[in-house]
């Protein structure tokens, strides 16, 4: 194993990696440029921006607004996570409506909700889509005032807002 061969191999490796990356960048950009269903090269992504209904209405509600509604007792909070997660801790007074078993909760939860009431759904984590899916589902059912508190559980806990935990 001659040192010159090793140096030569490393040089080749670096050069070829650069070539492969350059070709990919050029092809990726060119194809996106000409295809009809292209996407913008740069787009600001945030979960809240994605939460828009078909008619363009923003679904996300800022934490301050949700907390204000909570303080006025003016909103119903729906926890879209699993019952096990809900049991470990949830926003005080929130009702558990697990998105994955939403059918089982139709009579016990959904039928008891006032269609005109302000409803705020939440789950946990920026990327959690349960609350979003639940909100759109309820909107389809005819509920009119629905909002999503993105990353709800983490934010709520982080701001020391009232929660219910097994110990409390």
């Amino acid at each position, binding site marked *: 194993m001659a040192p010159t*061969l090793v140096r030569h*191999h490393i040089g080749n490796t670096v050069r070829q990696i650069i070539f492969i990356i350059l*070709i990919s960048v050029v092809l990726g950009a060119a194809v996106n440029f000409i295809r009809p269903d292209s*996407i913008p090269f740069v*787009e600001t*992504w945030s979960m809240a921006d994605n939460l828009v209904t078909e008619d363009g209405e923003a679904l996300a509600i800022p934490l301050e607004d949700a907390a204000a509604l909570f303080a006025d007792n003016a909103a119903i909070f729906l926890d879209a996570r699993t019952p096990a997660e809900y049991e470990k801790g949830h926003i005080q007074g929130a009702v558990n409506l697990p998105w994955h078993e939403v059918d089982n909760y139709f009579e016990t939860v959904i039928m008891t909700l006032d269609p005109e009431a302000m409803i705020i759904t939440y789950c946990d*984590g920026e990327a959690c889509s349960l609350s979003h899916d639940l909100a759109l589902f309820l909107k389809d059912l005819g509920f009119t005032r629905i909002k999503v508190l993105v990353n709800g559980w983490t934010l709520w806990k982080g701001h020391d807002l009232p929660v219910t935990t097994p110990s409390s």
Partner: protein
Amino acid sequence: MLQKKSSIDVPLTIGYHFTRLVMAGVFIYASIDKIIHPDLFAEAVFNYQVLPGYLVNLTALILPWLELILGACLLINRWMAGASALAAMLMALFVGMIIFNLARGLDISCGCFSAAPDDDPITLLTLARDICFLIFSLGLAGLVFIKNTRRVR
């Protein structure tokens, strides 16, 4: 230039072509759906929650092509030094991302072989599969290194 013949050459050659073709298949197969659906793949990239928002679309546009070109190089046995090293680096990156998101309990789709956000959630099986691919890629890079540095005049 002549290849120095020795008794270990045959298994090394078999191992080289085997890992080369497997990884070529993996990368090419993985790239197709993502190239067809850049919008869905961008969503999968965003869901990993590791990139700043403005890099999401660029990654979703370039990465699948990188996989395709890299897979093509492996398939036609060209630029093997760069392709095998890049394959190992990408697999290490993917394994790292999967461990990171499994550890923080993010419930997201893998975006590994399909761009669709609904299927293929990341699990320990995904991790095990990608670690296998990482070992293959590292092995291949090692074999390419041996092949390129053992030549005698």
